[in-house]
């Protein structure tokens, strides 16, 4: 509230309200819960779900084949031992950063605009981390021995190699997943109780009843709920930064040209938030249209997210510039060659596409007209998602395919199974997302209600 007041002092026009006019506690609750409870299963939902589910079955097929035949079905060949699997891992985990940023950091910073988007951004985070987590496991070749990564008492008397960033990854990602899941679930509890109370169907009452864990909305419950949310937000905040930092260590600890650089952690974190917000926009724009949520996820939300994208995109651009500068300034022939190879080598097309997608096109967001045009914003969000995928491809593949010894150079090309695995994780992601919007309130009823309360209180003052 204070920050909004200061806008007035500075002479900036008062920001638009965060929810459409005429909303009361009742209408907010009705609007969000009816999507789950009374709207039913619509043909549009079934259509989308079936597409997602078929892709999930494709993933099932690829993973089965991978278990039988091994990672050779992918295009990974020495020297490029990290292909699509690692590119996709980093891409998905990057996407999984917006949710926790929105829910934790923005909660601690009292940014009210987070309330209508945090729930599905968190869901997106959890599903994206699930997709991400699959890739390193599948890439191990013998995924059924994944538990070797965990330090547990075993008859080999062996610990994992704690000096390896790949082990740090296991801890970083699993901690992030656990905390994000807890945060999401704790936030859901009062809403699940609302659904329980409003459900007509006996089975729904029982399921929502069990999930809401006996929530009655007493003052004690609310007080504990607030404390738990704050504590989890405090826990999650450092994780937003740490996870992608550790992911970037996977590269920086290696002495491969183009990887062994200190700019990676901050530039990876910025990139993660960049792609995360792009994905939130990609999801939010169709959903608000299809479920008529324009008065809850307003233009102001979209515009704010576009601004965050612009800011993080500039940090990423700075990262690229420093990367290129350091390659030249270092005087190291391998680093210099890496840069030359990016611009002139066999993958130069992808490098220029990356620059276009991540640096050039998003500059259009400086224009208020672009930020407020839904089709353009949607296109920019897709472009940034593509650009961030290309960034990981450029980092992983270009450096590996031409390492120190020219005799070992080889061009890496993904096979159809690489593409199938990647598409398959989209199946997993969207299947879970479709189930989420069908069975859980995709916008936090409780928090939006508190927004109604605060905006209606504010009105007389202004």
């Amino acid at each position, binding site marked *: 509230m204070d920050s909004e007041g200061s806008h007035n002092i500075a002479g900036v026009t008062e920001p638009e309200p965060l929810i459409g006019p005429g909303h009361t506690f009742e209408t907010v609750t009705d609007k969000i819960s009816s999507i789950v409870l009374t709207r039913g299963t619509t043909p549009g939902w079934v259509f989308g779900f079936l597409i997602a589910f078929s892709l999930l079955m494709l993933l099932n097929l690829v993973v089965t084949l991978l278990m039988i035949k091994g990672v050779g079905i992918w295009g990974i060949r020495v020297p490029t031992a990290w292909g699509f699997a690692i590119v996709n891992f980093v891409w998905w985990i990057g996407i999984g950063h917006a949710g926790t940023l929105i829910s934790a950091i923005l909660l601690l910073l009292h940014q009210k605009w987070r309330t209508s988007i945090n729930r599905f951004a968190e869901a997106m985070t959890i599903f994206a981390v699930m997709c991400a987590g699959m890739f390193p496991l599948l890439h191990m070749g013998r995924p059924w021995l994944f538990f070797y990564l965990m330090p*547990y*008492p*075993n*008859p*080999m*008397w*062996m610990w994992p190699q704690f000096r390896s960033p790949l082990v740090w990854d296991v801890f970083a990602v699993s901690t992030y997943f656990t905390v994000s899941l807890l945060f999401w679930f704790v936030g859901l509890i009062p809403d699940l109780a609302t659904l*329980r*109370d409003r459900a007509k169907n006996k089975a729904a*009452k*029982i399921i929502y*009843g*069990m999930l809401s*864990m*006996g929530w009655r909305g007493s003052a004690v419950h609310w007080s504990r709920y607030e404390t738990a949310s704050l504590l989890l937000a405090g826990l999650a905040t450092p994780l937003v930064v740490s996870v992608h930092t550790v992911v970037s260590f996977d590269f920086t600890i290696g002495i491969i040209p183009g990887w062994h650089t200190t700019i990676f952690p901050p530039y990876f974190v910025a990139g993660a938030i960049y792609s995360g917000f792009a994905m939130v926009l990609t999801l939010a724009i169709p959903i608000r249209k299809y479920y008529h949520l324009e008065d809850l996820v307003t233009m102001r939300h979209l515009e704010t997210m576009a601004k965050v994208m612009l800011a993080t995109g500039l940090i990423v651009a700075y990262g690229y510039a420093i990367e290129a500068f350091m390659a030249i300034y270092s005087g190291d022939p391998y680093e210099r060659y890496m840069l030359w190879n990016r611009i002139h080598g066999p993958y130069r097309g992808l490098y220029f596409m990356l620059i276009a997608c991540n640096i050039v096109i998003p500059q259009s967001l400086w224009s208020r007209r672009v930020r407020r045009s839904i089709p353009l914003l949607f296109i920019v969000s897709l472009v940034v998602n593509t650009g961030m995928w290309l960034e990981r491809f450029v980092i992983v593949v270009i450096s590996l395919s031409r390492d120190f010894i020219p005799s070992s150079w080889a061009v890496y090309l993904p096979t159809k199974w690489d593409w199938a695995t990647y598409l398959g994780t989209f199946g997993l992601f969207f299947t879970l997302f479709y189930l989420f919007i069908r069975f859980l309130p995709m916008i936090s009823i409780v928090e939006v209600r508190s927004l109604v309360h605060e905006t209606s209180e504010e009105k007389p003052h202004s």
Partner: protein
Amino acid sequence: MSQIFHRSTNLVSRVSIYGAVLIIGALGYALYAIAMSPWYTDQNVKRQQPVPFSHRHHAGELGIDCRYCHTSVEKSSFAGVPPTQTCMTCHSQIWTNASMLEPVRASYRDDTSIPWIRVNALPDFVYFDHSIHISKGIGCTTCHGQIAEMALTERAGTLYMSWCLNCHRQPEKFVRDKSEVFNPFYEPPSGAKQLELGRKLVKEYKIQSYQHCSTCHR
């Protein structure tokens, strides 16, 4: 609003939340117990052999030296399973009509091998060399157990990596004087005395506590 759940649900939910922790813990322990059990490792499980050869009788009661049959143990990675001819050095003279030994005589007659069942076999990804262990003062019974008391031979260790590392991390607890290596009745001195002897021998025999991966996984 009507109640969906009975009062007892409160108790059930509490018990199930705390119970889940216990059950997961118990499950982990059970898995570990199974992995360490003779049922899974074949430790201390007697193997039926084509001829019921008794180490107790030959090595224990008769006092035949290990190397009489396992000839290559000092020079090779493999201790050697004796050929039928080794059996026949004695059994062409004694117990020549014993029905129990008919497979041995048949093997000798037909020039075919006796299909002994291997008791201690390490996986192919493990490199193990008998000769270095013997020449650094590790006795047969350290790994093979009380062989002089086994009527039918059994595996004395789990053959897990922890079993190997147990000695590789602290050889002073197991090393013995070289003259005692082939003594199947050797009793190590108790506690502190073994440590004292062990430290002395480790130094004297220049035993290095190799623990890096490529020691065994070459």
